[in-house]
């Protein structure tokens, strides 16, 4: 299986849905160019190989990590690749910011396990006495992104990473095979927010006013008009421009999978602040009598909406974790 002269590439999973694999394979022929230079030593979805083979290797050249760090086993392999690999890539929103599984950071692991074993759709069985090596890995007290655990050299955000991240990553891989290791940390995407590139430009850039908060089914969307100006919550202002805007182009607002815009470390708080600044401006005084709060209540789940992809790496989570620790 091992071909001499080729570099070793390992693709390792954390808590993952599988979308990242699909996105990476979708690069098609470009991936074949990479595979001329690399030998895949471990990739659960694509090649036959067990984790102990990975453990036996002394050195890996490039390791790609997908998914959130949620269980002890995830943590073990995250540390393993940092020890053995020269270049570590955090691939996908989960590895870089925490992603959707990261929303579990707010719940106690016991609560999560209780749900897992008590809902109608899951079958619950007592864990029988199994030899240690057959037991399922334990769940960690909280879930974190890979970035918080180790220092990846390359970060490819996105859920799943789009063409910009993928092309960038394949280029890095080919350059690395040619002997050029990237300098410093790389994060794919532009150094600006999505709004800068968005084709749905508002009429007056200096004054965007949200006429209220609506859900997509409540209004007739005007094509080509800024979502915020139509009262739809769009995460664009707080999100890094690192995609081809597949959502925006298909008449859906941005949901922020590319993570915080440069200079922002807590998307939710920044976005909350931005929304408060542009929502119902100039109408506040009339609305005060029958309740300004009623309009704000239309944001049913601010946490899930604003932190959909970035909860474990956000600033506010520190508060919740610190509190839990102190309470014991």
């Amino acid at each position: 299986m091992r071909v001499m002269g080729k570099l070793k590439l390992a693709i390792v999973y954390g808590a993952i849905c599988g979308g990242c694999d699909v996105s990476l394979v979708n690069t098609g022929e470009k991936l074949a160019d990479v595979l001329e230079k690399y030998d895949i030593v471990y990739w659960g979805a694509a090649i036959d190989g067990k984790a102990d083979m990975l453990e036996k290797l002394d050195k890996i050249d490039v390791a790609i990590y997908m998914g959130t760090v949620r269980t002890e086993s995830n943590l073990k392999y995250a540390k393993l690749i940092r020890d053995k690999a020269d270049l570590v890539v955090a691939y996908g929103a989960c590895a870089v910011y925490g992603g959707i599984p990261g929303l579990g950071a707010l719940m106690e692991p016991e609560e999560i396990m209780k749900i897992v074993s008590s809902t109608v759709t899951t079958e619950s069985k007592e864990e029988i006495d199994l030899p240690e090596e057959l037991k399922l890995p334990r769940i960690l007290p909280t879930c974190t992104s890979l970035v918080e655990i180790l220092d990846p050299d390359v970060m490819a955000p996105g859920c799943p990473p789009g063409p910009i991240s993928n092309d960038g990553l394949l280029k890095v891989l080919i350059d690395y095979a040619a002997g050029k290791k990237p300098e410093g940390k790389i994060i794919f995407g532009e150094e600006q927010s999505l709004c800068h590139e968005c084709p749905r430009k508002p009429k007056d850039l200096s004054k965007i006013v949200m006429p209220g908060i609506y859900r997509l089914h409540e209004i007739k969307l005007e094509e080509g008009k800024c979502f915020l100006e139509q009262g739809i919550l769009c995460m664009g202002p707080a999100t890094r421009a690192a995609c081809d805007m597949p959502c925006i182009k298909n008449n859906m607002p941005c949901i922020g999978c590319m993570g915080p815009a440069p200079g922002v470390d807590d998307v939710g708080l920044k976005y909350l602040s931005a929304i408060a600044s542009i929502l119902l401006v100039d109408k506040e005084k009339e609305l005060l009598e029958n309740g300004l709060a009623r309009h704000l209540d239309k944001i049913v789940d601010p946490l899930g909406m604003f932190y959909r992809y970035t909860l474990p790496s956000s600033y506010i989570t520190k508060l919740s974790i610190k509190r839990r620790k102190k309470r014991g």
Partner: protein
Amino acid sequence: MMWEPRIVAFFCKWCAGSAADLAGVSRMQYPANIIPVIVPCTGRISPRAIIEAFINGADGVLVGGCHTPNDCHYMAGNFKAFKRVYLLKKMLKQFGIEPERLRIEWISATESQKLVRVTKEFVSQIRELGPLMGEGDGEA
């Protein structure tokens, strides 16, 4: 050592801040648990500043600004503060933190008595809620 609630109060310079000044020169007494921070307008208090206060040991945060609808010296800063605080309270609840730890009050420059009443009320409310972090963080 007895635990004492620590409260960071963001007051706007024109209304609540002046009320605090007036309370001071009128020799009114209010609890020493309040740490006032004077800002030009409540509209400039970012949610980040409030969360930072909580993380660094505050048990409660009070925001004091000018009365709605017409008192704000910058037209609509108080509305912005209201919207931010309202949404942040909602989010704090989802994070498992009592939203009552964050309070917004409109206090005009002449209402030093209201300021005293509000601070007393808030301190006793936080005292009932207990420390934000377990046994209190013990820092001075």
